[in-house]
């Protein structure tokens, strides 16, 4: 996990479920690029194309609700997102993002304040997010979670720590 994550924001509303992020028919794939090619396509023909070029996904309440499909997180990585900030997350997505190595943070104040295209920088070690002149505090990650993100996800963590 990079200490500082910087990029431009794409913004979604509340209750974006994991069927929207990646429809069930594509769960035969686990590769980020194959998943990204179909991410959010139920929202219209301009998706996922219009998500390219943004690094930070900002969303409202309950992001990633519904199915526990891990590929929802993998698809976002495939689209080039480096972090997700939401007003709140569904618990399955929260775990899957960490396990896939995708940094995430709950920060309703930031989501309220930013618009599409705004530049944001996230420092999860320090527990703060900056946008323009504003600084927002976010909860620091529990030790167990931080170690998984630093290994690039749970598979990387296992590879480094598991003795067969």
């Amino acid at each position, binding site marked *: 996990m990079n200490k500082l994550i910087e990029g431009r924001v794409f913004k979604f509303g509340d*209750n974006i*479920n994991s*069927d*929207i992020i990646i*429809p*069930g*028919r594509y*769960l*035969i794939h*686990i590769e980020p690029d194959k998943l990204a090619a179909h991410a959010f*396509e*139920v*929202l*219209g023909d301009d998706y996922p194309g219009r998500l390219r070029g943004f690094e930070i996904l900002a969303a409202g*309440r*309950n992001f990633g*609700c*519904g*199915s*526990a*499909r*891990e590929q929802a*997180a993998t698809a976002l990585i495939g689209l080039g997102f480096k972090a997700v900030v939401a007003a*709140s997350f*569904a*618990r*399955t997505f929260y*775990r*899957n993002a960490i*396990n*896939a190595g995708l940094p995430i943070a709950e920060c309703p104040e930031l989501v309220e304040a930013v618009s599409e295209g705004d530049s944001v920088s996230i420092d999860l070690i320090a527990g703060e997010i900056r946008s323009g002149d504003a600084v927002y505090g976010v909860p620091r990650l*529990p030790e*167990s*979670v931080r170690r998984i993100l630093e290994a690039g*996800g*749970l*598979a990387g963590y*296992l*590879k480094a720590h*598991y003795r*067969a």
Partner: protein
Amino acid sequence: MGMTIAEKILARTSGASSVSPGQIVDAYPDLVMSHTATWRSVDVMERVGATRLHDPDRIAIVLDHIAPAKTEKHAADQQRSREFARRYGIRKFYDVDAGIAHLVLMEAGHVAPGDLIVGTDSHCTIYGSLGALGTGIGYTEVASVWLTGKLWMKVPPTTRIELSGRFRPGVYAKDLMLELIGRLGADGCTYESVEFHGPSMAEMSVSERMTMTNLAMEMGVKCALAPPDAKTEAYLAGRLDGRAYAGIASDADAVFSRTVGVDLRALEPMVACPSQVENVEPVGAVAGTRLDQVFLGSCANAKYEDLAVAARILEGKTIHSGVRFIITPGSRRIMLEAMRTGVLQTLVASGGTLTNPGCGACAGDGGVMADGEVSLSTANRNFLGRMGSRESRIYLSSPATAAASALTGVISDPREII
């Protein structure tokens, strides 16, 4: 200080004498379930370079989504899962003939009160119908539990749902849950445990408890629990895989974060409208909506009782000619029982299309919908594009409302038919 059921289960499985909400523990699940996603966990294990499992007897595999295989890719993936089960001696392996993982595992006696069960499916909450803490995780984390036997878990606060009164005719557990989801919202219980209490619970069948703990996921819960009682013990009698039955209950001084009361007498048939489960209306508000397809299936509502409710409504009648009525029994055992009692005879004679047991159309396997089509489903999700075209729409209801609507070709109040 007393503990709730979820707190007791997380304390036991993490070796602590007590735990409290917010605490993070390393818990050792009693069972880790994976379904059609199994090959993905196998892939992770191979990438990690691991060859030894923590405990093969704590692993259950059920091939339920897209089963039997629909494409060569599905076939190859299922083959990989089968070979893994064989190589590592996974005894709790169920192939494409068995049905939906959750129902199969409960029927087979692999779920008991007080168990901690994790699996690659959000609706693992259903194990709470037998007093087990079930919760969904991703496939990488399943591989991790296969190897290490444990995972980190945060102890959830517990909401107490207090049920009083009896359902009026035509109203079922599904309607109760749609009412609750509408009232509390899709994130109304995020990260929480929910316990169902109150005088109505003693009368609630195990099948209804399965529907309740399954649908609770749509409020964002971590787990949902029906405290075990005489009904639970009766269901598990002779079923429990060599284990003795032992109940579990919240302590009298356990702390609940809040209590939500529901009077079952006041409920009416409910429908979740496109394309979020929290978007609920009484059936009267959407009655008359034209339907192309009715789906009687899913882990929420394709149990024997559900099929029997639909059959009582359809007995000796013929469904509307403009509707495709797809019936997917939840498991092979359910299908056999419904064959034996004539329930399947009635459903198919009415014009229904019977498919093999499994997830079926709820997982996009058959029953896919075209642009502009409308479906009424007994499943637990009506998300955009979940059953086919993004221009199709899904409504959710109880099996009774679904059967009544299959008869008329439009969303209909079952109380006007039964």
